[in-house]
């Protein structure tokens, strides 16, 4: 059930876009990077960007900018003097992509809190996060989400960079041992502490459920993200790992976007999960890889393109390393969704996802 029409949602998005463009490209509020970029580009985004269709005037955002440049170039003038968080993406080797931020993650996860039920994530209780913490936005975001719901959160770290390295070097035994080490810690927490909400990756969830009866351990809701979840795998998680009695909330997100929630599955979905970007703060498009100005048809595969539109961070037309199916607006989301997200080119080449 939509809360607004697609047309109204588009009008709201366009108004938000104009405000954000004005913010980032005005001397009084903008960041050094974008002001400098506009000066070289020779056109004024504040005049030429009126609707999302105009975003095509920007080139694709280059992830190298987030690796090569010092973080202060991204500080909007209006935030000058406020210490910021530096968040990093998963990364493998070398310099990771970094995004700075202040309150965006709180906004995203406070909003997400309204999308999960008290039945599955009881308020004023305890959570466990078993997954990549370290320099990731997710670490603070999950804790904020728990806190917003009056809860506290235990943390068990998993370093995905190390896992990717082990798998790339075919050190499968070490990868397995590391995963067991992580799961051991979670099993210990569940044995000695009361926990009802769990954030983890699907593979770790599966491994934990092999060790512990997670329902008996008190878990009532699982919030998952971080990797490909094809329909059969989702079905396996729902039916056989969570035994149709623990709430399952798959999400798609990363440090650059925030969090795209999924709509509750219906029988017609056949376990195909569709995610919706936290519009207007972020826009997800599924584009034709050979001509990224074109959005693919509904129910067709294409590459995921992300635009982030907050006062803290502007990132136009970033091509994610993911592909997905474009889906129609649904439920409270009056904009396109992305479904069955998987690594870009997954059908053609082997991708190291490791324990994600």
């Amino acid at each position, binding site marked *: 059930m939509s809360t607004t029409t697609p047309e109204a949602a588009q009008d709201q998005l366009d108004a938000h876009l104009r405000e954000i463009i004005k913010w980032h490209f005005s001397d009084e509020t903008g960041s050094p990077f974008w002001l400098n970029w506009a000066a070289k580009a020779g056109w004024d985004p504040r005049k030429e960007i009126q609707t999302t269709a105009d975003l095509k005037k920007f080139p694709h955002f280059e992830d190298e900018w987030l690796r090569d440049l010092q973080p202060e170039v991204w500080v909007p003038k209006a935030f000058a003097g406020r210490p910021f968080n530096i968040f990093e993406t998963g990364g493998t080797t070398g310099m990771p992509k970094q995004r700075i931020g202040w309150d965006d993650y709180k906004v995203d996860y406070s909003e997400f809190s309204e999308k999960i039920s008290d039945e599955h994530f009881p308020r004023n209780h305890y959570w466990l996060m078993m997954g990549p913490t370290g320099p990731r936005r997710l670490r603070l975001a999950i804790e904020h989400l728990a806190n917003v719901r009056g809860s506290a959160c235990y943390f068990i770290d998993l370093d995905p960079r190390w896992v990717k390295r082990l798998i790339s070097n075919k050190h499968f035994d070490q990868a397995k041992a590391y995963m067991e080490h992580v799961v051991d810690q979670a099993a210990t927490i569940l044995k000695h502490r009361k926990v009802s909400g769990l954030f983890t990756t699907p593979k770790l969830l*599966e491994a934990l459920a*092999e060790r512990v009866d997670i329902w008996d351990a008190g878990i009532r809701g699982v919030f998952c993200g971080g990797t490909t979840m*094809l*329909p*059969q*795998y989702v*079905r*396996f998680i729902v039916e*056989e*790992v969570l035994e149709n009695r623990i709430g399952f909330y798959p999400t798609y997100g990363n440090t650059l976007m925030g969090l795209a929630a999924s709509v509750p599955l219906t029988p017609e979905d*056949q*376990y195909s999960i569709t995610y919706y970007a936290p519009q207007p703060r972020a826009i997800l498009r599924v584009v034709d890889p050979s001509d990224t100005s074109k959005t693919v048809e509904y129910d067709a595969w294409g590459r995921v393109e992300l635009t982030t539109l907050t006062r803290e961070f502007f990132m136009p037309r970033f091509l994610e390393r993911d592909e997905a199916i474009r889906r129609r607006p649904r439920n409270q989301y009056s904009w396109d969704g992305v479904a069955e997200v998987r690594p870009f080119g997954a059908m053609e080449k082997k991708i190291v996802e490791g324990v994600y």
Partner: protein
Amino acid sequence: MNASNLTPHLPALRRGKPYESLEKNEIVDYSTGAVVATVSQVNAGVLKKDLKNIGDARAALRKFSVAELIEISSKAGELFLNGTLPLGDKGHTQSADQYVATLAGTSGLPHVMVRRNMDKIHHALTNMQTVLNGLTRGLPLEVIDRGYGEQSGAAVSYYPTTQALGLVMPSNSPAVNSLWLPAIALKTPVIIKPGREEPWTPFRLIQAFIAAGAPAEAFGFYPTDHEGAGEVMRICGRALIFGDANTVAQYRDNAKFSVHGPGFSKILIGNDCVDNWEQYIDLMVSSISDNGGRSCINASAVVVPRHGKAIADALAKRLGPMRPQRPDSPDARLSGFANPKMAEYVDVAIEEGLKTSGATDMTEKYRGGARREVFEGGTYLRSTIVHCESFDHPLANREFLCPYASVVEVPEAEMLDKIGPSLVVTAITESDEFRSRLLDSALIERLNLGPISTMKISWDQPHEGNMFEFLYRRRSIERA
């Protein structure tokens, strides 16, 4: 019946129960590309979950005596060879002729070879008593039922080494399913990961066993990916794996696994017999080319002390002109490739090898065309005999999925130092000294003394390991 129901669907069998996955592979005809069936694919987690309770499957088999299971195996053999059995979960059935046509259509094996493979499986099932007698060296089978007893006046006791036998099967040779058949009579459930292009034979065998009275829960049929195959190997206490050298390398030298990689089978002719080589040409041709040259027991090298070039030329003259035929032709000798890229890979590998000096493709002049040939939409590789001047040549000890063999001259005294591990060796010699050295060699898994095809299999003798000794272990026992 809607359109999707027109195509058979093979579900996974989770302890005998059909499970339709949301993820399915299409199996296509190798020449037309038409989809002939879909096959449900399961993730590794499904296997892990099911194997937690595998003891129930074993308990279902333990309700039968070995004698009863031998009887069931025999009935299953007849049903496999002649019966009409369920095919999938959409109401389809499959007669024996349909099985032959379907397997031929998706594997590229000609009908005549599929039937030969069927006969081997049928023989193994209907002679299970003899097979077990050979594998157990005459153990009274009640010993397996009771767990203890007497053999030749001595107290014996055997216990199972595993709750289930894992099987990671290949796509290239249906007869290898014969290897696991004794497991059912030995009360061991099977967890089968079929080859991607060959789900037909294990599925039909399972249906034959069930129709013959075996408990369905003794059978796991799990089409799965690489990760799932790894779980089959990891979780089952004992497992067989078939694959190329890279795939099987990680499982070698571990008593849990029975590894079936390339065979590098060979024919060796001794000094005393090599001057009469012409009388063994038929044997060499059949050892190299039967079953489309795809088995690990096909000869892939002929090693002789002299006359190498003449032998290679004679073999090339016989094998080189062999052309692809329609799959249902009784004269078909070459197998098509379900995956044409594999044919291309093999062709390129042989050509690359020929670039190293010291090797000649002796078949080239008799082929009258390229090695790789497309015939009525299917891709084939024609027979290739390569004369190598030395056993060190990169093509001297290779094995390919087509009738292929090298012919190499090596002094008899040096043969066993050169040949390397060989699944089957047919040694044509009357020399006691040479035979003695052959019998002493640890490199040879199966030894044929005299002019016997490398393709001859006796299921009552071990083939790359003894299935009884793999599944059962003797313990000491004293009873008051």
